[in-house]
């Protein structure tokens, strides 16, 4: 019996299942209990697990993040709810200096089995301070794992794996996908980290895409298929650890690659994956590896402007077509 769930409900279910399975798992954050977060993701959890395990905090991100790090070191498995990914800037020390380094600096004596759940994604008309995709920021820090679910199915499987991991994991859900549905099995499943998902097989070009950009890449692949161009779409699922083998094997087959991600293009995830392809599959490349990230501007509040800052299916298809035809994207 197949059933479809929203991404929001899939996250809720993953949390509920893990909290039932392991009583050391608890949720902490702003508006997580009675309010169930602004996106209503956690609705119903406080009724089942009580306010001891679904803890509302004051508006003080560094404070509750620090509490969670300490709680993780001392034997619990906190799931921190950071209302917007943009607030990562507020918890940088607790996350990057403490959580990421404690296992290493204690000589392996301490673990920080902590999950930071937050979000990314523009085009919600939330302006520059509530629309950023900052996953590259934490992916840069050794000691943190970073998961980017691209559907309800992925969100549930990756979150359950994150909660069971003995090291800090940051998981970014796309805030525009909370109401998107996908088939989510009734029976329990986990999605391992570092295993990319080949969403669609193709022959002519590899589109490596993360989070909601997987949908964009698949739509682009549809446009290209109508023109006789066969695109392979790969969702890495986690960027730390990154499944290089799947990406490189695909590029060796197709000879061309584009990397699509919603973070700012400069110094970001697209650049990292593109350079690994260029380094390790250089002699298989028949075209330059193209990055498509968000424009290097603060996300505009104007809807018209906001929409042109993120990669679109048409834009991806246009570039892919040029690469396959041997046309130049940036000159020779």
């Amino acid at each position: 019996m197949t059933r479809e769930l929203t991404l929001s409900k899939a996250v809720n279910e993953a949390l509920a299942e893990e909290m039932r399975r392991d009583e050391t798992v608890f949720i902490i954050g702003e508006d997580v209990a009675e309010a169930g977060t602004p996106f209503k993701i956690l609705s119903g959890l406080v009724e089942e697990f009580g306010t001891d395990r679904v803890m509302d905090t004051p508006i003080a991100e560094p404070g509750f993040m620090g509490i969670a790090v300490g709680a993780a070191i001392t034997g619990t498995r906190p799931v921190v709810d950071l209302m917007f990914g943009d607030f990562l800037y507020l918890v940088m020390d607790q996350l990057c200096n403490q959580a990421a380094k404690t296992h290493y600096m204690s000589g392996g004596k301490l673990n920080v089995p902590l999950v930071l759940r937050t979000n990314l994604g523009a085009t919600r008309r939330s302006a520059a301070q509530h629309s950023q995709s900052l996953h590259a920021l934490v992916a840069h820090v050794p000691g943190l794992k970073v998961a980017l679910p691209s559907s309800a199915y992925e969100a549930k499987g990756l979150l359950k794996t994150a909660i069971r991991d003995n090291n800090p994991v940051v998981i970014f859900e796309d805030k525009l996908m909370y109401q998107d549905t996908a088939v989510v099995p009734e029976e329990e499943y986990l999605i391992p980290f570092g295993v990319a998902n080949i969403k669609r097989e193709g022959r002519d070009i590899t589109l490596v895409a993360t989070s909601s950009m997987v949908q964009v890449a698949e739509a682009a692949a549809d446009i290209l298929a109508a023109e006789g161009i066969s695109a392979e779409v790969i969702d890495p699922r986690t960027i730390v650890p990154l499944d290089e083998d799947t990406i490189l094997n695909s590029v060796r087959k197709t000879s061309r690659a584009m990397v699509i991600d919603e973070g700012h293009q400069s110094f970001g995830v697209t650049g990292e994956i593109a350079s690994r392809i260029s380094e390790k599959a250089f002699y298989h490349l028949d075209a330059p590896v193209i990055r498509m990230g968000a424009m290097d501007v603060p996300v505009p509040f104007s809807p018209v402007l906001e929409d042109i800052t993120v990669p679109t299916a048409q834009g991806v298809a246009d570039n892919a077509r040029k690469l396959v035809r041997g046309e130049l994207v940036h000159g020779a």
Partner: protein
Amino acid sequence: MAHEVIMPALGMAQDTGKLVNWLLSEGDQVKTGDILFEVETDKSTMEVESQADGYLHGISADAGDDVPVGQVIALISDTPGTGERILPATKEAEPATTEPEKPTKSPPAEALALRSEDVPAAPVAPTNKILASPKAKRLASEMGLDLADLAAAGHPQPYHVADIERLKSLQPHSQAASCFLAFEVDKCGVRDFLEWMQSQGGIVLDLKHVWISFATASLRHAKGIDGEAVITEFTTLDGHSSTYLNADRQRLSSLDDTEDAVTPDIIVRDITASSFTQVRLGASKAPTLTIAQTESRYMLTLEFSSQQLDDEQAIALANDFCARMTNPLQHVI
């Protein structure tokens, strides 16, 4: 130190400016702020002021000229009478990097760079360097092909894997199918002939000269090229080779090889010293007749590409050669 007067960039997409007229003449004294000349762009006509004090010299653009943006069109020197004529295009500076003449705001360098990135450059390579994708270079190298041949043939760069097919078609030998015919003939015809020549006329013939002569005649017959020169190359297992011009028209007893290294029309390969009875080495630079032997028979292989001989010509060549070897005397006469 003379100050350069440069055609300024007055618009974003401007490549050249039309010089309307000079308001000062060669040798005139100039002060900073004096109007030097007028420029017409697609939008407007503008006056360009001097950025230095001195004397105007070396005017190299005249009224009505379309001058590339950034080009030096005159000098302002400190002293009168030191001007030298500036050759056009000796200095084609980037508009964003050198513009002492800047009467209007021009876009910052970054803005220009961003714009130009969006516009694909024409696929040309101005230098000797061959532009090709890493995979195209690797494949060409693995196939022993030279991408420079594509450039020499005028195909635009950069090259991709798709261009390798075109490059292959430029290589005649690699493209042609390799064919062969295998046949055999009894040895006694030639043996009897050599014995007869010696006993009747006291003439000692070299067996290889008989082969060379007959192969040459057979090729001439098969291709119907009676009046043309035919070059025959003779090679042996030890790698020794010699070349003969019109071997079939010379005396069998005194066949002379030529000094000139020329491309042969047919190759006769002697492997009778080995125990091989057939070879298939693939088409060479010319149709190749390989002669092997058993105790009583010559084992022959004719290898050729479809461009060298068609099937009928190859069969005719083989048949003619067999006939000569079976009954040499008739053919010599």
